[in-house]
């Protein structure tokens, strides 16, 4: 072993010094090149998903962000709405803007599996909640949210989630604080019941939060924030902020 090292050292000393420098430089260059590429590629993904229960306002939001108005209205979506565009409100801004790839996934429970197709490429998820009709759907929304929070992709890549309380322009809409608390409570309940399922049928890959304590969104490994918006009137500033944070212009 030591002989080998000695041999190598002698050989190295024998090479002209410039060659070594060059070799070293090339090596350094290649490494930094790949490193840069890797970092750049990670943030290259400009896909944002719009998910949520059926009727929460995802399609309206999609068209609001794209065109600035929901046109004639929407019906229950049967297929995802997919578009790459510059946010409507930023069209007036000068300069080169990075277009955003927005996908609106239908919320109907039969079409849920479609979400899994789009998750691997997404940089962030906007979970839209109907703040008007919240309490009757609270359980279903919490279940959907729980399923999402425990998906392997979301946990491993720490994909940030924005819980958007839509329809906030209506008078009887609940506040985002209330919604956040309710969701946390429901998810907590789900946590206990789901983790109790027998090993044969674990549907969720990961468990949430800290056992023993009540669940809170800040305990998630990925960033979970709550915001308000109104798809119909165009109050989508917080959404755009979230999007811009993830998809650098």
């Amino acid at each position, binding site marked *: 072993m030591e002989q080998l090292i000695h041999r190598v050292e002698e050989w190295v000393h024998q090479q002209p010094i410039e060659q070594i420098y060059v070799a070293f430089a090339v090596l350094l260059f290649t490494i930094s090149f790949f490193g840069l590429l890797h970092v750049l590629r990670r943030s290259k993904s400009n896909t944002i998903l719009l998910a949520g229960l059926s009727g929460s306002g995802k399609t309206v939001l999609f068209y609001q962000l794209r065109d600035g108005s929901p046109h004639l209205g929407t019906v229950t979506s049967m297929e995802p709405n997919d578009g790459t565009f510059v946010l409507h409100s930023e069209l007036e801004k000068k300069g080169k803007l990075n277009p955003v790839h927005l996908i609106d996934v239908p919320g109907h429970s039969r079409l849920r599996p479609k979400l899994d197709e789009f998750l691997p490429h997404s940089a962030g998820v906007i979970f839209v909640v109907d703040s008007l009709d919240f309490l009757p759907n609270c359980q279903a929304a919490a279940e959907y949210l729980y399923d999402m929070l425990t998906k392997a992709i979301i946990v491993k890549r720490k994909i940030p989630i924005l819980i958007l309380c839509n329809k906030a322009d209506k008078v009887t809409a609940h506040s985002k604080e209330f919604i956040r608390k309710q969701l946390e409570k429901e998810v907590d309940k789900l946590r206990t019941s789901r983790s109790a399922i027998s090993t044969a*049928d674990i549907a969720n890959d990961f468990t949430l939060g800290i056992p023993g304590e009540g669940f809170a969104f800040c305990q998630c490994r990925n960033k979970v924030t709550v915001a308000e918006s109104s798809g119909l009137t165009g109050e989508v500033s917080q959404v755009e902020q979230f999007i811009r944070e993830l998809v650098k212009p």
Partner: protein
Amino acid sequence: MLEQLLIFTRGGLILWELGNALKGSPIDALIRSCLLEERSADAAFHFDAPGGGAAYTLKWAFDNDLGLVFVAVYQRIFHLLYVDDLLAAARREFSQIYDPKRTSYGDFDEIFRQLQKEAEARAEEMRKSKQAGRVPVAPSKKQAPSGAARGSGKQRSSGGGGNGGGSGKDECDGDSGKGRWLANGSSNGQENGINENSRAPNTVVKGKENGAPEIGAFDVNKLQKLRSKGGKKTHTGGGGTKVAKAEPTKTVKKNRVWDDSPSESRLDYTDPANERGEGHAEVVAADQGESMMDKEEVVSSDSELEEDEELENEKPGIKKKGWFSSMLQSISGNAVLEKSDLQPALKALKDRLMTKNVAEEIAEKLCESVAASLEGKKLGSFTRVSSTVQTAMEEALLRILTPKRSIDILRDVHAAKDQGRPYVVVFVGVNGVGKSTNLAKVAYWLLQHNINVMLAACDTFRSGAVEQLRTHARRLQIPIFEKGYEKDPAIVAKEAIQEAKRNNSDVVLVDTAGRMQDNEPLMRALSKLINLNNPDLVLFVGEALVGNDAVDQLTKFNQRLADLSTVPNARLIDGILLTKFDTIDDKVGAALSMVYVSGAPVMFVGCGQSYTDLKKLNVKSIVKTLLK
């Protein structure tokens, strides 16, 4: 007359709208309950606005190539004849001006108004001509349905209401599970007695049996052409429809119901005119007798229907393409999928499904629905028809089998516990499917999650049933509520629930006696039990070995529960427990049939005879097995 006509993309954006938004949002209901449930090949959808609003009928058409849906809504009391025609025309016109980038189509208003006028005029003409050639026809005997007639009869998709009661019955079979839908094949009511020709199984058309009155043959056929393909009689038309014929006036005799067919709200089963003039094909059909039967299926199974001209040809839609040209087209990807292209692939798929023990009519309906969603679509490059069809079918199957509501029982149990009442589950099913065995398995599973279970022995009929449950209770060490034999099960259940409340049990599992779906008094007793106790979960136990009978069982069970219920919102079957799953190797079709018919998710699967043999349904693996 039309309340609303909507054109929207499959992604949900409304592109053009006529009329105002309606109360109860019938369009959303249509999408959720019909189009997403793979029933897009049905003729029409009936919607009752909740809270006593108006009753609407909805008809739709697809443009699969552009991904658009055209829906027309009108009040059920108006039997509009021109709707299908109008939808097809609108589709034609709109697809020409459609541009994916555009979102407002104001110029379509004018075009549409014109189309509407034309369509109305055409309908008027047809009605007049129909009234002219009225001929009394003896109702033909019901025929042993030939496969083709059956198939086509059942699926009477669009094409405007098919035979009133005929297809009504079909839809009843298929939809009665949904309780509130008044399955009426169509809403068109035509008083002419002749229409009932369509009732008479196509046999009349096909010149079978009473060789339909030769005199009236031509007229009859002319009328047939006005009929929507629904003209196919439904073999199941058990609802013996003996409609008064020969009466050119409105009075129609009350239909006598020969067996347990669901009572139709519409008594007039006269066949509506086929606005699209598809009848042309039938005119030809009559002349050629039986041979047309197969072609008929090709034509009629065409839900949305292509151009009328095509129908006038004897071979609608069957173009002979050379091998080379079809190969070329599949590579270049410009081939537009047509019915004839899809037929062979769909037939192969249907046979494959049937070998996997899927009920025949379910396989048929599914294939039609997939066809409806693929027609007119452009083939991608380098794809063959069969692979497109396979993918579409796979998606459809996945969609059907994915539960549309949460099947997390534990959470519901906890919710009930929070409310301070026990969670009641009632097991129903026909004889010998494994209710008591699987009830014990479910109890065992619940016990493992630290839930207090109590059994209620409401099978007071079969000898040894109570002892059987007692043994299970002893082995599982849980309390059991029993009152012996010959007692009223409804009362026993009621007392069991009260007892459970007293001794703080979280769940009450109620065992009932097995009963055949045709047995009226027993079904009545079951309905009484459910109405009296209002359980949280009505679990239908069905065995995986069952074949075509699954459809019948579930439909009749649901129907009985709906009919005999005392409250407006009848409790129907909420979930399915599939048993004896270990006995079938890969013939898993029963799961599909049951889920399709009832819309209820499969909550448990029993796969053995010991306590631990209970598992959840793995949707992906079932779909894979079905399509292997």
